[in-house]
C-alpha cells in the first residue's frame, strides 16, 4: 500500500522531486556537509579552529595575526595559564590586530609573567629573551615564554 502511494506521488510530480534532490545536493555541497561531519567526529574543536584560520588571508598558524598559535597555546597550556589573566601578546608584524579574544575573557588583566611573541622573524633587531624561559618554540617564529623568577 505504501509502495502504491509513493508510485502515485512520483508519477504525479517526478520532475518536482528531482529538482528538490538536485537543489538539496547543491546546498549540501555549498555547506560541505560530509567533510564537515567527518571533521566534527574525528577532529577536536581546537584543531578545526586552527585549520579554519590557516585558510584565511589575514591569519595563519604563525603568521600575520597568528590565531592558530594563540589557540594552540590556550589549549595546550590550559592548566598552566592563570584563570583570570591572559599572557601578554606581542606581534612583530606591525599593524596586525592582536586576537586576545581567543581566551574568551571579559576585560582580562595581562599577566606580565607570561608572554606570547608572534612573527619574531619580522623583528629588525635581535630579540633579548634572556630573562625568560621558553615554554614553547614554533620554528623560532612564535614563542611562548615565562619570566624567570
Amino acid at each position, binding site marked *: 500500500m505504501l509502495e502504491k502511494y509513493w508510485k502515485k506521488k512520483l508519477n504525479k510530480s517526478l520532475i518536482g522531486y528531482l529538482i528538490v534532490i538536485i*537543489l538539496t545536493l547543491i546546498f549540501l555541497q*555549498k555547506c560541505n*556537509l560530509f567533510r564537515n561531519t567527518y571533521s*566534527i567526529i574525528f577532529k577536536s574543536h581546537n584543531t*578545526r579552529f586552527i585549520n579554519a584560520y590557516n585558510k584565511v588571508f589575514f591569519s595563519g598558524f604563525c603568521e600575520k595575526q597568528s590565531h592558530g598559535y594563540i589557540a594552540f597555546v590556550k589549549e595546550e597550556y590550559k592548566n598552566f595559564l592563570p584563570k583570570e589573566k591572559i599572557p601578554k601578546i606581542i606581534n612583530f608584524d606591525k599593524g596586525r*590586530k592582536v586576537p586576545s*579574544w581567543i581566551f*574568551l*575573557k571579559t576585560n582580562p588583566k595581562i599577566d606580565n609573567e607570561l608572554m606570547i611573541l608572534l612573527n619574531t622573524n619580522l623583528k629588525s633587531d635581535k630579540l633579548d629573551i634572556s630573562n625568560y624561559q621558553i615554554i614553547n618554540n614554533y620554528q623560532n617564529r612564535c614563542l611562548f615564554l615565562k619570566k624567570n623568577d
Partner: protein
Amino acid sequence: MIEILYIILQVLIFLILFSSIPINKIIKVSNSKYPSLSENIAFNFVLHSNFILILCILNLDINKISIIYLTSIPLIYIFFLRNNFQNIKIFKKNSFYEFMLIFLVSLFIFIDMSNKLILSWDAEKFWLSKSLNFYNEFTIENLKNISRPHYPFLGPLISSLYWKLSFINEEYSRRLIFGFIYCSSVLLLINNLELSKLYKIIFFSLLLLVTYDYFLILSGNQEILIFSIICIVMNSFYKIKNNKNENLLLHLIIIILSCNLLMWIKQEGIFYSFFLIFTLFFIIKLTYKQKLLYLSIILGFFIFKLLIFKLYNLEISLNKSVVSSLALNDLFLKITFDRFLLVLKYFFFAPFQSYFLLLGIILYFLNKIGKTKINYLNFYILINFLFIFIVYLLIDNQEYNLKTGIDRLIFNVSPLIIILLVEIINKKIKNYFL
C-alpha cells in the same frame, strides 16, 4: 563524536523551546487559520527575546536570567493549558514537513558553522566582547567598560544566553540560534505561497542557496537577526493584507514587539522600526488617532531605550564612528556631486555582487509589467533605498564604508525580495484560476 550528537540535540532543543508557547492559547486565533510551526517559532522567538531583554534590563546576570527563563516557560505552558491537556492542537495537521525542513536545514547549517568558525571583523572587535560580558556573568552595568558602549546589545545578549544553556561550550554555539532563526524566518515567508508543499520546498531551497553565505550572515554580525525579524514582520504584513481582520491582534502584537527588538540590535534598527510602522499604515486603514497611537508606542520604546542607556551610563550616540558631526552645516557640506556619484556607482554594481539583490530587481520590474499593485512594498522599497543612499552620502570614510558595508545594509532589508516573490506568484495563481 559526542559534539555531533550535541549539535543534533541543539536543533531539537531550539525546536521545542520555540514551540513552547502555543499562540492559539494566548490569543484567540481563527479556527481555519491555525498557526504553522514556523509561525509559532517566530512568535515565540519575538516573545522570548523581549522577555530576556526585560530580565537583562533589571541588571540580572546570565545565571539568574537562565533560571528565570527556564522556569517560566513550563509555568506559562501549564497556565495556558491547565484545563486543556487532552486537546493540545498547537499546529496545523501537516506540520511534519515543516518540522523536517527546519530540522534538517538547521542541522546542515550548524555543522557548517562548527567547521568554519571564523569571526568577522566587527564580531572580533566588539560583538563578541559584548557577548562575553554576559557569558562571563557580568551584567548590563559592565557594558560601559566594553568597546563601543553606545552600540545596542540584544544580539550578544541572546547569543550568550543560548551559549550558556548549550551543551557545547565552544564560542560558535552562541551563533547557532542565528542560523536556526534565519532558516525558520525564510520558511515562514515561503509558507505564504499558495502552492503545493513540493513547490514550497523548491522555492525554500532556492532562496537558501541564494542567501546563505556564512561569512556575510553567520560569522558574528547582527544583520542576520535584523533580516530574520524583518521577515517575521513582513509575514505579518502579508497576512494582515490578505486575510483582512483575521488574527489582526496577533499580527499587530508581533509587529510592535519586533519593532522594539530591532531598536536593541543595531543603531539603524531605530530607523527600520519607524519605517515598518509607516509601512503598516499602507496596509490597514487606520484612523488618525490609531496612527498616532502606534507611532507613540514606537517612540515610547525609543525613549525607554535612551533612559536605560542613561541609567547604566552607556554612551548615547547615533552617529559615533559613522558620522563625525550631526551639525546641519557639516552635513550639507558633504552633499557634493562627487560623493553622490560614488554612492550611485556602488548602487549600480551592488546587484552584480549580490544575486539576491539582482533577483529582487528582476522581480520588481516583473511586478511593474504585471501591474500588480503592492503599495506597501513600493513604499518600503523607496524608504529603505533612500535611507541607505542618504547614509552613504553623509558618512565619513565614504569609499571604505561603501566597500565594506553596503552588502550588509542591503541584506538587512532583503526580506522584501522574498515577500515580493510571494506576492507575484500568488497573484499569478489567482489570475490563472479566475
